């Protein structure tokens, strides 16, 4: 069963997620409920540390099964990636919600996952944002990575930011 193997494994990496980003994800997850919503994590990755600076929401191309599938619009990806690069940042991962389901990767998540990205999953139970967990694909299986809140000293001048797709041109 999916999830069971992943739970036993712990990734060596960690994801630093500013509180403001976490709150933004919770808002989007609740707004989108009961549908899955998805987007990208933008920030920096150095060694075992992935530092999220911004979270972005993107359009789900899978409108037929928006309740339980996402297929992120590549045009949105391109727009987010461009803006990130212009600021010396990178797409470092993907987030999506699991409405009424625990934040463990599904078989579908596993099949579509890329090594080198963090996969952040937010459970939204009955319309209320709940548990948030992050996963990385290593050797064809998911391992969970720790999520840390941003520490004031380590953030440098990068302000945690949450950017709605409405702001960007695509």
């Amino acid at each position, binding site marked *: 069963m999916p999830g069971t193997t992943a739970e036993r494994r712990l990734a060596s990496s960690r994801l630093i997620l500013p509180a403001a980003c976490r709150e933004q994800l919770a808002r989007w997850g609740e707004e989108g409920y009961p549908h899955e919503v*998805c987007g*990208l994590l933008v920030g920096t990755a150095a060694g075992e540390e992935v530092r999220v600076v911004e979270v972005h929401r993107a359009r789900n191309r899978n409108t037929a099964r928006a309740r339980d*599938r996402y297929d992120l619009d590549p045009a949105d990806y*391109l727009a987010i990636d461009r803006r990130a690069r212009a600021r010396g940042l990178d797409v470092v991962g993907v987030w999506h919600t699991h409405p009424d389901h625990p934040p463990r990767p*599904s078989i579908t998540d596993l099949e*579509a996952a*890329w090594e080198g990205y963090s996969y952040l999953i937010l459970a939204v139970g009955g319309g209320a944002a709940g548990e948030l967990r992050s996963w990385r694909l290593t050797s064809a299986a998911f391992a969970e990575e720790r999520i840390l809140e941003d520490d004031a000293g380590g953030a440098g001048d990068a302000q945690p930011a949450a950017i709605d797709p409405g702001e960007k041109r695509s």
Partner: protein
Amino acid sequence: MSQATVRIPAPLRGFTGGAAEVVVEGRTAGEALRDLAARHPGLARRLLDDDGRLRSFVNVFVGDRNVEEIGGLEAPLAEGATIHVVPAVAGGGAASQRRLAELKREVPEVTPREAFALQRQGAVLVDVREPDEVAAGSPAGARRIVRGFLELRIEEQVPDLERPILVMCAGGARSLFAARDLQALGYRDVRSVARGFAGWKADGLPIEEPRVLSDGQRERYGRHILIPEVGEEGQIRLLDSKVLLVGAGGLGSPAAFYLAAAGVGTLGIVDDDVVDRSNLQRQILHADARVGTPKVDSARATLEALNPDVEIQTYRERLVPENVERIFDGYDLVLDGSDNFPTRYLVNDACVKLGLPNVHGSIFRFEGQVSVFWPGYPARRGPCYRCLFAEPPPPELAPSCAEAGVLGILPGVIGTLEAVEAVKILLDRGDPLVGRLLVYDALEQRFTELRINPNPDCPCCGDGATFEGYVLYDEACAATPG
């Protein structure tokens, strides 16, 4: 040759030594990507498939445009263009996980060991995996019904709604969905095998490697496989079957054509004649360019072109008592397309002696006859040809096609009916023409069925009849091949 910059997403930078951008050369997007793949070979497989097409899990943009919208890999590049490789980002599936959790409450599960014990007590183990999964191994004695056809085929395999059914897939998820659907059909005791075939194998339970069709065969015989009476199992049976055609003439032509198309694995053809232009009015295996060549060679060329799956064995000899048993050896049935009495009686006598079904056809002008002479048919005792006609008629009463003429299409009808009977017998489906003579009148466009009974005093197949050697009838009553 223009230069372009390719932007590499983080998951693929392991193949570019960490570089986020790579400068490449090419006049089109495809050329640029192939240049990129040449510079960083690890990327090749991730971007392009074996046929050089873009893989489905990457998107490529030239500037702002997805290449799919501007001519695909042929999209032209301007000097200094920027190409973005965008990974497909997808996932989800929480709903199916949720449904699985619900199903686990609705469908009882058994361990592979429990399933094995229940199977030995009479429960039916149904493997619902895809053919390519089954090909690598399946539990011994399991029924294999692919998930997509489960509801349509289960009744045929398990008519008793009370009989316990154990459903198995690879890991125990698909089988839960399948089991729920079987419950909905009315099966009272349906259980899902937890951990599926992976668990069965890990527990060291018995496995067999069933024969399955190749992808090409599944495509070729797809319309057969869809028929419940044939299915994949029946098609494999046909592929394993051997039919001997006596004569590659008017009757043998359509019969051989359809049996080869149907995938009867081995077709033997006995004929000592060469193609004559007058044959081509009805003997559709042959061709004008092959006039003068042996009929068996001409038949082979046509049948191999239609279906290379079929093995064609040719016997360029006249069927005589000395060779009949050697030639018939190893075949499952004989399809008689001869038009002369010595051969017809020889075929009959050898089939009775060897216990082979003899699919019989004969034609005259506008009229044809079909039957199956098979005294050993398990469902009912049938007659042999001699029960009907103990001895051949005098030659003047038995004109050949060459003498009497024949409507060219008539052997098409009769030979095709013979092929139908052959396939039914090979599949053990339906009711063969054993003890029934089907008479076709093309002028009236009418079929008539006559009952023909076995003769208990038949010298060939009657009670207490003993084989006393083959009778060689006078060649005078052998008409020229028709």
